[in-house]
Each structure stands twice: as C-alpha cells, then as structure tokens.
C-alpha cells in the first residue's frame, strides 16, 4: 500500500518506521527541516518537506494514488483539514486522524474522517481499567453502534446480591454477557444465575444507559466514571 504520513514528530517517525518494516511504500510530510533530516538519516529517502494541507505539496506527494493518509501532527485542526482535503480533492479511500482532544472524535466522524486515534482517550481508558475501586469499567466501545461493553464488580452492600438475573430491572438494551466469580471462573449466565458478592459482571449496554446499569448493580455513587469518549 502507498501510505502518506503527515507529521514527522515522534508519532509520525515511529509510525513510518513500522510501516516501512511491514513493507509498505511510505512518504512522510513534515514542515520542519531538522525533523525531515532526522527522518531521512534514519529511514532513508521517504520524507517530503512541506505543509500537508497545501495543495502543491499534496500534488507532489501523489495524494491521488495514496491508499491511505494518516495525519498525526500535534494540531487537531491540521489533522482534520489534511484528511478532509485528501478525501474531497484526491479521493483517498482511507483517512486516519490523530486527535489530541478526545471530544473531537464525534465531529471528526461526522465530517467524514474514517478513523480517529486519541492517545488521550487510550490513556484514560487504561487508567479506568486499572483503578481497582472503580465501580464500572468501560472495556470496549463499539464504534458506531452506540453500544459498549462494561465490567462491574458487585460490592458487598449491593442490592442485587443473592438475586437471580431474571429478577433484576436492567435498563433497556442492557444485557449481562458474562460473570466471573471471585475465584476467577467465568460463566455464561442464564436467567437463573444468582449474583454473588465479588462477581465481576461483564455487560453490554448503551452509552446513555451506562449510569442506570451501574446504579442497578452497585447502587448510586457520588462520583462519576472517568469517561473515555463515546462515539
């Protein structure tokens, strides 16, 4: 594949390196001369000095035959425009934008960017998974569907302890997919499965009913989740 990477900072550099090692044809576009030199020294003649959203640079870089454009500069606005222009003017089939503000994910999607990657969101999600006391952990957001997979550890004071799943009043379109007991044994639950203290409940839910699901399983909490962005 011919892949154009816009932005030759740390992310762009390591990305280009990996892509070259995977056998792709890669071109890095970078404004800064010193960064260009460093990339050329390390990775060879795969760098073009210029502005990735300037039409003349784009012509020279051959956007017209690119299979993918990945914009990884430090500026969300530059990554957005790079991808939009690549799509609209050069019909690039796949565009990927790095976003720094996780809240930009939605608007980028709406404006036609195929994929967004947010380091901030990834780190937030990691923190969320590693906070042991957290009542609800978001494991996975299923992009585009509005659904997510969450994990809830049932605390001793929860009102659902000792109840059968069929007797729980779960929010609409929330379902319990898996229960992992205190010994770490996973079980696919049925309606008759009884919730025990310390069970880790893995559930599918809609983003907007996440709070309601948590309230059912652990009771209301004074603090909200550290939230990763929703699609």
């Amino acid at each position, binding site marked *: 594949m011919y892949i154009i990477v816009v932005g030759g900072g740390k992310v762009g550099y390591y990305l280009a390196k990996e892509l070259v090692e995977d056998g792709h044809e890669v071109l890095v576009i970078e404004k800064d001369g010193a960064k260009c030199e460093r990339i050329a020294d390390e990775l060879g003649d795969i760098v073009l000095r210029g502005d990735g959203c300037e*039409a003349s640079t784009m012509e020279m870089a051959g956007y017209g035959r690119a299979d993918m454009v990945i914009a990884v500069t430090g500026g*969300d606005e*530059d990554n*957005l*425009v790079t991808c*939009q222009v690549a799509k609209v*003017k050069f019909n690039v089939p796949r565009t990927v934008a790095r976003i720094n503000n996780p809240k930009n994910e939605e*608007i980028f999607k709406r404006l036609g960017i195929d994929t967004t990657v947010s380091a901030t969101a990834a780190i937030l999600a990691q923190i969320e998974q590693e906070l042991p006391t957290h009542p609800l952990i978001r494991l996975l957001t299923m992009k585009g569907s509005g659904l997510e997979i969450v994990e809830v550890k049932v605390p001793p004071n929860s009102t659902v302890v000792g109840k059968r799943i069929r007797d729980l009043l779960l929010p609409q379109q929330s379902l319990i997919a898996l229960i992992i007991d205190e010994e770490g044994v996973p079980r696919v639950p049925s309606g008759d499965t009884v919730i025990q203290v310390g069970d880790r409940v893995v559930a599918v839910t809609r983003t907007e009913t996440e709070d309601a699901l948590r309230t059912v399983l652990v009771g209301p909490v004074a603090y909200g989740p550290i939230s990763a962005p929703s699609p």
Partner: protein
Amino acid sequence: MKVVIMGCGRVGASLAAMLDQEGHDVTVLDINADAFRRLPPEFKGKRQVGNGIDQDVLARIGVGEADAFVVVTQGDNRNVMAAQMAKHLFGVPRVVCRIYDPIREEIYHGLGLETISPTLVGARLLKEALEKEPLARRPAPAGSEG
C-alpha cells in the same frame, strides 16, 4: 442578532465594532486576552478568552444560542474546524469562515461552508485599482535612445 466572532485581530475587531454599533449582541472570542485591545473603548459586547476549536469553550460562550458565527483567526485550518463545529455541532444558522488559501477555500465552499478568501478578494481589488486607467509603459526618460 446574537453574533459570535472568533479571532480578535484587525478584521475581527473591526467587524465586532461595526456590529456592536448597529446594536447586535456581539461576543468576541480570542485565545489571547491581549487581542481585545484592538476593540474600541465604547465596545459593549462580551470579550471571552479561550480556544475556539475546543467544543467545551464554544458551548461555554454560548455558540449554541448564536444566530451567526464568524471565524477570522490567523489559521485557515483552525477557522475551518471551528466553522464546521459551529455549523454541525451547535447548529448555528449562519457561519462565515475566512480561508486565506484559495484552494482550501474552494474545497470548503464546495462542502457547503460560507467562505471568504481575502487573498483572492484582495488580489482582485488591487488589480481593479491598477486597471482604473489603462496600463501603459512609462514614457522613456528624456535623452535616452529608443
């Protein structure tokens, strides 16, 4: 009319002053508080400091209730992004966006943004000024040959 102007440079400040004078409810946003010195002392509108490509900032300064949004910062890409956020996230009915680069201006105009490229407008005005009288070679200085 409630108008939000993003970017308090010379153009932003002049436009803000004009609209304020005409009695509109004007809010000016700039990332740098120092920029508000360009507003005339009698300006009655609101001055807000913040980054206009952060949707939290746009929400805070009331873009959700604005009738019009004009974006005139120095960065084309910033302008394009803020304009699209105002239009698509906040549903502002009138959004006008300055884009210096004529090629980007054409692209975003094609995508339905109301855009102005001062580069093209400026060049056209300068050309018209030049051509007010027919362009002719200056007469050869006295004494020179052919």
